């Protein structure tokens, strides 16, 4: 099997017994298919659900996880660039969180490749995201009798930072796609044709593979910058804070998103503008697309790849004009839509009860332990 693949990918190819011919090359990729079932601790997930929608998880109690990861938008949101913390704005598109528990690497730049516990910590504490001193958060939740009960029921003892970081990932496991026609085997004829193009002529599967439709690797696909990152000082300030913190050189003069450059900081800049392959599931709900929201529709995304991306000297060799006809592009979009399931917007996934407006006073405070 010759390919543009690493030894590790060859190993996968052997283990998974999959090989696909793409654009004249032979590429091995994990088979696309249904998602595995995750075992969920119900009490812990229920706690995580309440936390996910609770604004008290953020520094000034202005936003919750769901402010940027909205259930009705596939746990992403309609803004090209995410809201971020009050006082600033974000410089990237909020990714959808459905199936995030099935991933191995997180964030558009892949800076977290450990687990969702760490991702949760990063989101809560990062100053331009939720800006929460978790020591205060912990004390807030000790002051909420329902949390005291729920942490205990979840086997997490009294409310704690660590408990929050376990409960939210447990909840995220419940955000798993269900009912996609691709999974049910009920795809339309157009979608089926689209799947052939996806695996064949369009070569999408080279990166978008496995049950989550991502290889978890970073590539430069030639996505244009979203100038709003720099033209809006509230976004640019978050970008500067991020780039400075990540040790990106010359960050004040930077006019492009460095992406996964922060992983290895290639001296020649050849890794600038690489971003982690996103999942293709639930795209029906998560427009706009790309790490910076520059593609409004799936048709735009397909058109982007069909023209071989936009200009970038670091663009990956895989990205070449695809020469898809209009019908083929439509079929491809139909297939992508077949990867979206039912919306996860019922009380099963969304905490719908009100949160207390105040922290109840601990009665007899002088005579009970803190």
């Amino acid at each position, binding site marked *: 099997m010759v390919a543009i693949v690493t030894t590790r990918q060859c190993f996968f190819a052997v283990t998974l017994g999959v090989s696909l011919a793409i654009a004249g090359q032979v590429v091995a990729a994990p088979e696309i298919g249904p998602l595995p079932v995750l075992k969920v601790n119900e009490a812990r997930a229920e706690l995580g659900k309440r936390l996910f929608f609770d604004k008290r998880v953020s520094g*000034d109690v202005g936003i919750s996880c769901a402010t940027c990861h909205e259930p009705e938008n596939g746990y992403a949101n309609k803004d090209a660039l995410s809201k971020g913390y009050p006082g600033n704005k974000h410089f990237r598109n909020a990714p959808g969180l459905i199936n995030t528990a099935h991933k191995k690497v997180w964030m558009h730049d892949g800076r977290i490749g450990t687990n969702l516990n760490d991702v949760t910590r990063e989101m809560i504490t990062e*100053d331009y995201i939720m800006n929460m001193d978790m020591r205060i958060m912990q004390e807030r939740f000790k002051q909420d009798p329902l949390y005291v009960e729920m942490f205990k029921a979840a086997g997490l003892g009294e409310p704690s930072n660590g408990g929050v970081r376990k409960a939210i990932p447990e909840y995220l496991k419940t955000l798993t796609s269900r009912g996609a026609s691709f999974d049910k085997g009920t795809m339309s004829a157009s979608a089926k044709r689209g799947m052939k193009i996806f695996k064949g002529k369009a070569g999408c599967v080279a990166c978008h593979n496995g049950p989550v439709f991502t290889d978890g690797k970073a590539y430069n696909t030639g996505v244009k910058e979203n100038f709003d990152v720099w033209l809006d000082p509230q976004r640019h300030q978050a970008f500067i804070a991020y780039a400075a913190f990540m040790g990106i050189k010359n960050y004040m003069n930077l006019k492009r998103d460095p992406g996964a450059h922060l992983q290895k900081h290639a001296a020649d800049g050849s890794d600038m503008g690489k971003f982690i392959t996103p999942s293709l599931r639930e795209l029906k709900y998560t427009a706009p697309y790309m790490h910076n929201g520059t593609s409004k529709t799936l048709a735009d995304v397909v058109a982007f790849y069909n023209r071989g991306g936009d200009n970038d000297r670091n663009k990956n060799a895989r990205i070449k004009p695809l020469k898809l006809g209009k019908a083929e592009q439509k079929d491809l979009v139909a297939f992508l839509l077949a990867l979206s399931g039912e919306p996860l917007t019922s009380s099963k996934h969304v905490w719908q009860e009100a949160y207390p407006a105040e*922290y109840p006073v601990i009665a007899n405070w002088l005579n009970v332990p803190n």
Partner: protein
Amino acid sequence: MGSFNKAEQKAPVLFLIITVVVTAVATMATVTFAMGDKPPATASKVSLSPMSAAEPTQPQVKTFAKVANPEIPPLAPLGPPPIPADNPMSDAKVALGKLLYFDPRLGGDASISCATCHEPEQGWSFAEGISRGYPGTVHWRGSQPVLNSAYYNKLFAAGSTPSLESQAPSAARGGVAGNGENDIMEARLRLIPDYVNRFNDVFGEPWPTINNAWKAIAAFERTLVQRDTPLDKYLLGDKTALDDQQLRGKTLYEGKARCILCHNGAFTTNEKYYNIGVPRATRWEEDGLAQVTFRFEQYAKGATEEMYRNIKDDAGLYYRNKNKWSMGKFRVPSLRYTKYTAPFMRQGQFYTLEEVIDFYDRGGFDEEGRTTSFPETKTPLVQKLGLSDEEKEDLLTFIEALSGDEILMDKPKLPPYKPLFTRAELQAAQAAK
């Protein structure tokens, strides 16, 4: 601080020293303090305990009771504040510092500035017992007046920072105060062209840095001083500046009421740490949000698990040195400008100076008979005073003479953000990718 005391000692001051000594000697027969609550002589040299922790042991009281204390610095006119060699003053720096002081972009969510909790109209502090906090929180202590803060050697109620330059970031970054992070606050400054120019002009560096922002704020704060109080005028020779009642109050202050023992020198504080018997703030028993912060502070200040579980009051100096003899001790505050800085004490336990005087008159008890949660460290300096109503009134009028006119300031118009790059520059960069 001592520098301007010495520099400006003049004849009236020397006269005062004599008065004080005489008063102290006269008082000696009936009281047992004189120097009282003094730390061991070596304490200030022990590097582990840089603060002058007071040790109220009886043997010391006896020792010092034998002699009048010649070391109590007399009241004196307030000189200019000390200027650190590494942050010299300039008009441009002060002007920049003023803007930054009022700019909410130096905070987590860009909604509160230094001035939010240190309001010019509220005595450059915040007129509630416990200060408001960052949105979503409440603080756990009263806001300290910024006016005249330039004279303190240590800032915060328990003296946890050594300079205005280090106080500003502690406040701007603290979770229940400004909750800002250096990187984003610095980034904000860099996107405000007027600041870029001003920082460049003042500090000669290409970009604003957050540390230079603290320096500019500190320089501005060093201009917030009051040196023309009736007491200052009196001590500088204007004998009409204090009336007879105030002069009677002054005599009480320096004698029977014992204020001078700690509230001495030009700045009316010896800057040492005492537990004077202030009772616990009742708000912690009544307010869930305040209870949240109370526990956070224990955690954040390094309390042990046992202490975190059991403590029900602010241990003050203890958090800095973890010495049990420091429990409940706080830095003696200046009494200057107190006409405008109510309420008083670390959590605003008293709303008026009358209440404060009554508290001292009772020997460190409030009107309900409550006193400190840490009785073992309460200073013997605070004893029943036996002041008559007239004497209390006299003392009050004198303490009011430690404040001049109210110092107010209009909020400046803040410079706006502007994009750093033009669309054309971004397009050119895109084309060159």
